[in-house]
């Protein structure tokens, strides 16, 4: 890890690391689920949807068939709506009927677990999957709800005062990276 001045951004993952993590998560999902017939990858915007698309592309390549993916906006299900100004919505596109399927939720950073709780509620209104699993690029701890990820790109123990910034090429129009800013050392 590159140590630098306390308020400078520290890069913890670069584009190659993220690519490797996506590949590893892809294989772990396939390993855990044995067959990919019933798998649907659903990303949480913003960035979770891009990651879901990448995992689906990798998985389609490995399996030799098309794995479907989609996105699920959870804004309307958040538990902090009354504490913040109203915000715009992100796209939701559920690629197929999810009843009886195995849905893998994909997000960029897992922290409090509240986003995932909202996503589980949202998913419930779209159908009844046989199972729901969770894949995240970064798990930074500080959980506030009994939720854990099944597939983790990188465990990144951080302090609450730090900020983890994920950048992905399509969403952010920048090179893939994960950086930490803030915090005192």
């Amino acid at each position, binding site marked *: 890890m590159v140590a630098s001045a306390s308020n400078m951004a520290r890069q913890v993952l670069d584009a190659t690391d993220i690519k490797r993590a996506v590949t590893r998560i892809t294989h772990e999902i396939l390993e855990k689920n044995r067959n990919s017939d019933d798998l649907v990858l659903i990303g949480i915007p913003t960035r979770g949807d891009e990651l879901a698309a990448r995992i689906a592309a990798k998985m389609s390549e490995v399996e030799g068939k098309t794995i479907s993916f989609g996105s699920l906006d959870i804004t*309307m*299900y958040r538990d902090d*709506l009354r*504490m913040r100004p*109203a915000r715009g919505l*992100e*796209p939701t596109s559920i690629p197929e009927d999810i009843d009886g399927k195995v849905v893998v939720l994909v997000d960029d950073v897992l922290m409090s677990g509240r986003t995932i709780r909202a996503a589980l509620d949202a998913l419930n*209104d*779209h159908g009844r999957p046989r199972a729901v699993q969770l894949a995240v690029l970064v798990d930074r701890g500080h959980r506030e709800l009994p939720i854990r990820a099944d597939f983790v790109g990188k465990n990144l123990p951080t302090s609450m005062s730090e900020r983890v910034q994920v950048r992905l090429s399509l969403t952010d129009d920048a090179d893939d990276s994960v950086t930490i800013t803030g915090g005192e050392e």
Partner: protein
Amino acid sequence: MKHLLSTRDLSREDATLILDTAQELLAVAERPVKKLPTLRGRTIVNLFYEDSTRTRISFEAAAKRLSADVINFSAKGSSVSKGESLKDTALTLQAMGADAVVIRHSASGAPHLLAESQWMRGAVVNAGDGTHEHPTQALLDAFTMRRHLGELDGKNIVIVGDVLHSRVARSNAYLLSTLGANVTLVSPPTLFPVGIETWPVATSYNLDASLESADAVMMLRVQNERMNASFFPSAREYSRRYGLNAQRVAKLAEHAIVMHPGPMNRGMEITADVADSDRSVIVEQVTNGVAVRMAVLYLLLSGSQTPEAIES
């Protein structure tokens, strides 16, 4: 944005945010569970001093799809018929804890009065006031146009009919020009309001001349209940000069759509075959109305209203 009183107050950013939000909410109608938990525990009062079918039902459906509690109030059969004032009704609603009031009133400016008074703290949504504005109708019209025509910049929109009494025309004129469209109002000279030259629109007395370049034609209802003078010689002459019939539709460009805010006077401003043709998006306007009103209620009610939170 705390209230939605007129489209004149809406910036392009606000209007686009509402339309984009509605775009996402439209899909809720397609889901197995057509309900979002967002406004759970909020109370919305539909305060209707004037008759309405689709606007009231549409607001009610929108509020219910967001899980809000809805109280419907219509002036008929309430204490208003005993002479209760708007102020006392508002105080009652405040005492009952209404988080938002959707108001339709025959007096222009009633929603402004309600919003600016200290009678109640909730958000006020104008659902049509007199001959002034009907902002959610204009938003759903713009939304419907955007779905068929793409972004509205530079699009030619022709609005035909009783502009004088039409709150729909006024709201659309301001909203569509804010969104970059070229609006032409077509009407008999007697049915243009005083001061029309200050509106951001072009005007014409000749419908046929405006049709060829139109991307959308919106027919306005001839409001018989407000016709207290002879604005035109006869219904027949009106419909011959300003009604939309199959011959006129044939002049339209292939992609152009026909709209009407409802309720229609079939045979007056629009013929039945045009209203039911595949050019007509009149039924779709109603579907879109629910999504647009959900977006408005969500944006007004869901967030924190404290100024600090809005700045951060």
